[in-house]
């Protein structure tokens, strides 16, 4: 590039002179030599320093991918456990914790699969561990089983009642709040605090055993709420009344009012 520009300079700026290497200005000769030495040095350096696999698959060293592929695996994956622990895996795979991989609680197991006796895996047995998932937190999705770590059987390690591989509780929950903590807490501070869950939800006993297969029902009509809140309802006087005919008649009650925390508190 320098060469081209240099000669263009020579011929372009001194148009009357024919280009002839012998007539070439001393300055240009010197500069050309200097730039040639520089360019040669750079080309040589580049030749020796250029990484071998650069540009094979794109603008990067292909060898970098190989190096990353060779990094050691620490989490062996749940499939690896079944080879030696078939009973536990079998039981676990049918229980509620079936989506919870072994290594969630037992930690990375690759070293253990290679040398089972030298590298024992931990099993968390303290009360501190399970609440990571099951401690009550309003940010968790509603319906996800959560307990209050302070109030729920204080000081008892979780594993005395729950087998982590088959965590169904030893007896069915007595309170709805055992699973529906978010709703229970909301309702507890609302004007509906004194209403039992079963006032509005018919709950078959089987719901406590197979909660996802048998579900409680929900009110379906305006008249259900009207049972307490209609003008002619037979309920205590201090309960607010509405005229079912005129009050937001195109909506169902719970489209505006959240029954677990009706407005006005």
């Amino acid at each position, binding site marked *: 590039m320098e060469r081209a520009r240099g000669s263009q300079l020579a011929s372009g700026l001194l148009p009357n002179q024919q280009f002839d290497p012998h007539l070439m200005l001393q300055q240009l000769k010197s500069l050309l030599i200097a730039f040639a030495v520089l360019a040669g040095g750079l080309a040589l350096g580049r030749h020796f320093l250029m990484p071998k696999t650069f540009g094979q698959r794109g603008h990067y060293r292909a060898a970098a991918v190989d190096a990353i592929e060779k990094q050691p695996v*620490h989490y062996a994956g749940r499939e690896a456990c079944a080879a030696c622990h078939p009973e536990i895996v079998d039981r676990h795979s049918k229980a509620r914790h079936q989506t919870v991989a072994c290594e969630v609680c037992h930690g990375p197991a690759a070293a253990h699969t290679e040398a089972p006796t030298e590298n024992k895996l931990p099993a968390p047995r303290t009360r501190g561990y399970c609440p990571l998932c099951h401690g009550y937190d309003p940010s968790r999705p509603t319906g996800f089983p959560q307990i209050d770590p302070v109030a729920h059987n204080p000081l008892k390690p979780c594993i005395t009642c729950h087998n982590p591989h088959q965590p169904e509780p030893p007896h069915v929950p007595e309170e709805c709040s055992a699973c529906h903590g978010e709703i229970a807490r909301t309702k507890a501070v609302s004007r509906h605090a004194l209403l039992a869950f079963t006032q509005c939800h018919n709950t078959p006993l089987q719901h406590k055993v197979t909660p996802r297969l048998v579900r409680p029902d929900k009110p379906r009509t305006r008249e259900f709420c009207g049972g307490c809140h209609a003008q002619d309802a037979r309920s205590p006087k201090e309960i607010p009344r509405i005229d079912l005919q005129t009050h937001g008649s195109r909506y169902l009650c719970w489209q505006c009012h959240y029954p677990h925390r009706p407005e006005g508190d």
Partner: protein
Amino acid sequence: MGEWKRDAREPSEQISGSRREFLHTCSLAAPLLLLGLRAAAVEAWAAPEAAYNAREHYYGMGVDVARCIGCGRCVEACKNENDVPREPYYFRTWVERYVVGPAGEAEVDSPNGGIAGFPPKPSEKGVLRTFFVPKLCNQCADPPCVQVCPVGATFATEDGVVLVDRDYCIGCRYCVQACPYGARFLDPRTHMADKCTFCYHRVVRGLVPACVEVCPTGARVFGDIRQRSSPLARFTRFNKIMTLKPHLNTKPKVFYAALDQEVR
């Protein structure tokens, strides 16, 4: 799982529910089936890595916000699997907690990336809605970090994963500046850029990324975008999908379901 998802169940959930019930009734046949599968799986684990062809894959991840319980197991597993510095300033993945108040103002926190869960947060103003959001490198199809790397030390592989070359990075940190998602950091031990690799070393061995492996609720789904029968394909088929900061046109390959407008 999936029953405790917020709101009504989507059709997909019902399908999966009935499928589970079906399996449940067939549980007598299951042990045989499982044994067969297990044998195959163990073989795959023990077998020498078959020639992996990157061109046959194109990876992405699905994140179902409505399933995240904020347990932080993904953060822990990521740090274990990838030797990420344990200090609370370096994360390849982290979990954020959003608490939206009655006036719509959001408060966000991520104590130590959520690695030890989230301490209870008293909110004086009350809560309109609240949820957890797992974050990680979005493995953009048009990655700004790759665009700005002066030397070609960060790049997208043929199977769509953005990686950092640890023998080549000069530590200029332009990629850290260019990432809109805060997904990159400078490893204090090597003085080089580091980020989520989708656990590339696991993926080429046929395993899923560590965070996906340990997510107890299936909030994270990993798979091949182009393959029609991958968990990810099912995820993107049955959910309404959103990506982070779509206006920046980075074309993320981490797809969020049930994403809230407050998440940035």
